[in-house]
């Protein structure tokens, strides 16, 4: 089956400020295919190019950012260098990190409607879709609220709804919990988990939240030094403890528990999810009795 997104040896350098400065390659040959319907998580050290990668998925990189690009990105067969960004945005919806800079309409409803207005959707369909999108992120009750009255978690959910409403084939979330307090984080992660459960949308989830990533992803991709360093199921990737530590990433805490117990107690645990951990520890302690 043809992947919905295909990154072929993607390399990218932002434009330099001085003409004699050589280009600094942020991405150095990323090869990645995203299949329709999957929940793909992307991890990597700060500054490795995760946001750049997200922007490359809808053409903002390189069309709005300039710079030098190598290789190519295909979105549903369309080349991101030659197809207009607004056109690509119908297929790939990117939710940025900071909700403050994405929200500029006077009401939640108006905010969610904005993308649909740009796409020329009829009013009746707009109202239906807005209700649907706000429902998916549990923000329906706030439709007429002013965004200024919302908490960080609520704002980020509105930002997600306003992209979701456009029914993109792929939803890209660039560190959606970055600036949120634990309550806001939980709200947003619950909303994302709900999207995962109800299925239908392909999700690319960029984050440092390894616990969440371990629980929900179909596949995990680890970027390091501009390329894909590790790739596979959460079980496969989070078993590579040494490499993850060298790259500088945090393991899901239950994995650290497994590693610690294996090292100190001679056990042979290999869980990466909370439910697996519970079951394994339960039976292990049962055996003792």
């Amino acid at each position, binding site marked *: 089956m043809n992947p919905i997104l295909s990154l072929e040896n993607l390399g990218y350098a932002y434009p330099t*400020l001085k003409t004699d400065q050589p280009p600094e390659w942020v991405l150095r040959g990323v090869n990645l295919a995203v299949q329709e319907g999957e929940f793909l998580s992307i991890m*990597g*050290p*700060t*500054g490795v190019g995760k946001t750049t990668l997200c922007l490359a998925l809808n053409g903002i990189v390189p069309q709005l950012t300039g710079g030098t690009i190598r290789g190519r990105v295909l979105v549903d067969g369309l080349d991101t260098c030659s197809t207009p960004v607004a056109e690509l945005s119908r297929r790939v919806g990117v939710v940025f990190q900071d909700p403050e800079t994405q929200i500029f309409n006077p009401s939640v409803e108006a905010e969610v409607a904005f993308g649909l207005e740009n796409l020329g959707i009829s009013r009746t369909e707009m109202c239906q879709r807005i209700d649907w999108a706000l429902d998916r992120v549990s923000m329906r009750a706030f439709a007429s609220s002013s965004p200024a009255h919302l*908490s*960080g978690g609520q704002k980020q959910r509105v930002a997600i709804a306003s992209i979701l409403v456009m029914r993109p084939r792929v939803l890209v979330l660039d*560190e959606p919990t*970055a*600036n*949120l*307090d*634990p*309550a*806001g*984080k*939980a709200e947003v992660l619950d909303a994302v988990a709900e999207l995962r459960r109800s299925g239908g949308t392909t999700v690319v989830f960029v984050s*440092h939240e390894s*616990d969440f990533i371990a629980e929900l992803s179909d596949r995990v991709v680890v970027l390091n030094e501009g390329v894909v360093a590790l790739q596979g199921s959460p079980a496969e990737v989070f078993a590579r403890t040494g490499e993850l530590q060298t*790259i*500088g*990433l*945090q393991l*899901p*805490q*239950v994995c*650290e*528990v497994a590693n*610690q*117990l294996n090292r*100190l*107690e001679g056990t042979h645990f290999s869980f990466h999810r*909370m439910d697996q*951990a*519970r079951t394994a*520890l*339960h039976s*292990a*302690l*049962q055996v*003792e*009795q």
Partner: protein
Amino acid sequence: MPAVSLQTRDLTFSYLPGSPVLRGINLEIAADTFTAVIGQNGSGKTTLMKHFNGLLRPASGQVLVDGEDISRQPVSELARRVGYVFQNPDHQIFSASTRAEVAFGLRNLGLSEGDVQARTDQVLEEFHLLPYAHRQPATLSFGLRRKVSIAAVFAMQPGLLILDEPTSGLDWKSTQELLDLLHARNRQGTTILLITHDLRLVADLIPRCLAMSAGQVTAHGATHEVLANPATNGALKNGLPPVHQLAASLKNQGFPANVFTVDDFGAAYRATSESLRGDAA
């Protein structure tokens, strides 16, 4: 600058009349301590911290730095003793070079040019920022800008260092490197207050903790005790590290409730399995 101690007496503050954000806070922070400040958004953490460098003045009550009431001292004077690193590095970065950015605060303090250069070099080295010394800091990546903003305040060598969410957006390795630098500073004689939402970080790496809720201090002391305190626990349930939830699910097997780190969990596992083996024997 030697480590600074803090005291507040019945500190009250509101942004709008009628809705107090801080309600009669009585607090003592000893010199040389390293304390995490935790609490939900709106609990008053940042508001309280801003009283320590004069950005906010109490509506009633007192703020004492090293035993002195600071209500008459201007913010720029207090900057000598109290360093404040804001959450968003882009709210302070403006210079043409990283070196100049670090030197800015030092020049404000009126140091001699020789001292300015010496301290700048030292701090750029400490933070591994020498390769970027001549680059315009606004063009660096986020992680580096974060480092620059922290380095710029470190260079001023304040006796009290307040950091507002310095690790948000950083990967684990950078977080650990920063905490190492903070611990080193703390040992050399600096009191540190670190506002954060990352309870895993607090449980693993920060010795003391101050918990706030609805404008009051609910717990203050060693981290483990504060996290185990039911008042704190209830308010921060969402944010407690996964090991806590895992331990709670094994309660029926005899697992203790107060598990907050992987080490805690390991010890609890050993104790529980030994006692179960003992029972079986």
